């Protein structure tokens, strides 16, 4: 079943085209790793899909429901704001630098949206949050504040916070780039766990070993385009494109 379909997405900043017609599909339960050099537009792609940036052109469909549709000349498709909001709630995004709410405890970081956006009752939300924290190996930190946590712990709370809204697809933008190597491990472990549960995920990452091991499919982006995609096997062992080879060459040690 198709969870996400992006068609011909175009996005420019200040007249400079950053995404030049990206098309991509993600199926249910699939883990897609997005790799590519710095500035290739990986973050911009995730931000567009999660409606943090307005796209110039293209169509984004979530589980068959059109969330955004803009074409040159035609302008924006008439989709009510209410409908867009509902569809967007099926997407979750985990940021590189966590963006936890510093004034809320760990527990409240997780329960705030389920309670005030999804309308869940407090008790229920807290139980769910504690379960998620258990899964993240952080149960004892429920009452702590983000400033009392390590980066790795913060990122795991951020993942729990996103999961609490029960998204159908979870996006990660370099979830470990802000972390020391030893803290990277614990975050990747959690993402592996989610993959094993067949959570649909799109992970932008510089961790090639992780991509190779966890992803069902790897997408290589450069200069705002998808250059190549395929199984980790295909991309890492036998890339067909020259640019992919050059990029991956930088990671060989």
């Amino acid at each position, binding site marked *: 079943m198709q969870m996400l379909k992006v068609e011909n997405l175009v996005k420019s900043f200040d007249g400079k085209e950053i995404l030049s017609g990206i098309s991509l599909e993600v199926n249910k339960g699939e883990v897609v790793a997005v790799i590519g050099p710095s500035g290739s537009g990986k973050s911009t792609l995730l931000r567009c899909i999660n409606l*943090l940036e307005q796209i110039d052109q293209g169509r984004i469909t979530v589980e068959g429901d059109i969330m955004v549709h803009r074409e040159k000349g035609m302008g924006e498709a008439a989709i009510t704001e209410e409908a867009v*909001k509902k569809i967007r709630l099926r*997407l979750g995004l985990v940021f590189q*630098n966590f963006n936890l*709410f*510093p004034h809320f405890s760990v527990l409240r970081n997780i329960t705030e*949206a389920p309670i005030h956006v999804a309308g869940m009752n407090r008790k229920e939300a807290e139980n769910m949050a504690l379960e998620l924290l258990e899964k993240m190996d952080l149960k004892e930190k429920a009452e702590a*504040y983000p400033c009392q946590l390590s980066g790795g712990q913060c990122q795991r709370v951020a993942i729990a916070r996103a999961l609490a809204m029960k998204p159908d697809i979870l996006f990660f933008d370099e979830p470990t780039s802000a972390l020391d190597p030893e803290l990277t491990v614990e975050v990747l472990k959690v993402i592996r766990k989610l993959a094993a549960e067949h959570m649909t995920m799109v992970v932008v990452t510089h961790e090639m070993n992780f991509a190779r091991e966890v992803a069902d499919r790897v997408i290589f982006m450069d200069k705002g385009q998808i250059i190549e995609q395929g199984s980790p096997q295909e991309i890492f062992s036998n890339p067909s494109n020259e640019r992919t080879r050059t990029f991956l060459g930088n990671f060989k040690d």
Partner: protein
Amino acid sequence: MFGITGWTDTIRLSGLLYSGTLTTVKIFFLTLIFSLPLGLIVALGSSSKRKWISGPIKLYILIMRGTPLLLQIIFIYFAPFYMLPEGMKINLDRFIAAVIAFSLNYAAYFAEIFRGGIESISHGQYEAASVLGFTRTQTFLRIILPQVIKRILPPVSNEVITLLKDTALVQIIGISELLRVAQNEASRIFSIMPIFVAGLFYLLMNWVVTKVFHKAEKKLSYYK
């Protein structure tokens, strides 16, 4: 040593200073009650993308901060009388005029503090909230504002301390606040004592203000 002559003077002075202090404190609190929320609205308006909102509000801030508060008090007190056409002239109550002038003036200062505080919150907070589905109002009230309050407490406490002392300016339109009362009494009994005591009163009140803000800062120090 201050030339106080006897008990009667002391008792009389206490009563006078008490009534003066009451006026001072009333203006102080009323100004806070009106200028803090107004300041927040002004702050939001001044950073609005709509020019017809932000333009006039920026002009208002410029005028309030660019002209003497003393002048504003006089202006607001006399303007309804001198500027309205014959037959519609209003004699504004002194006390009301003072509170209006102070509220408008302090709202401008608070607005600039709020604006700085709001702008200091990282964009990531808005993005995280938006991805989780919070509305703009929820985001502001639940996520942004609490963090802003923590950051602006120190500059706000400075402003509040200044406000308490500035209340002495209302004597220009004939309001008998603490300092005015003390001055009158000083010239009546040829003594500097009432001025000195009035000073102690201001100091005591601002000591309380300082304490309150320290308490608030401490209460919010549970996170960074």
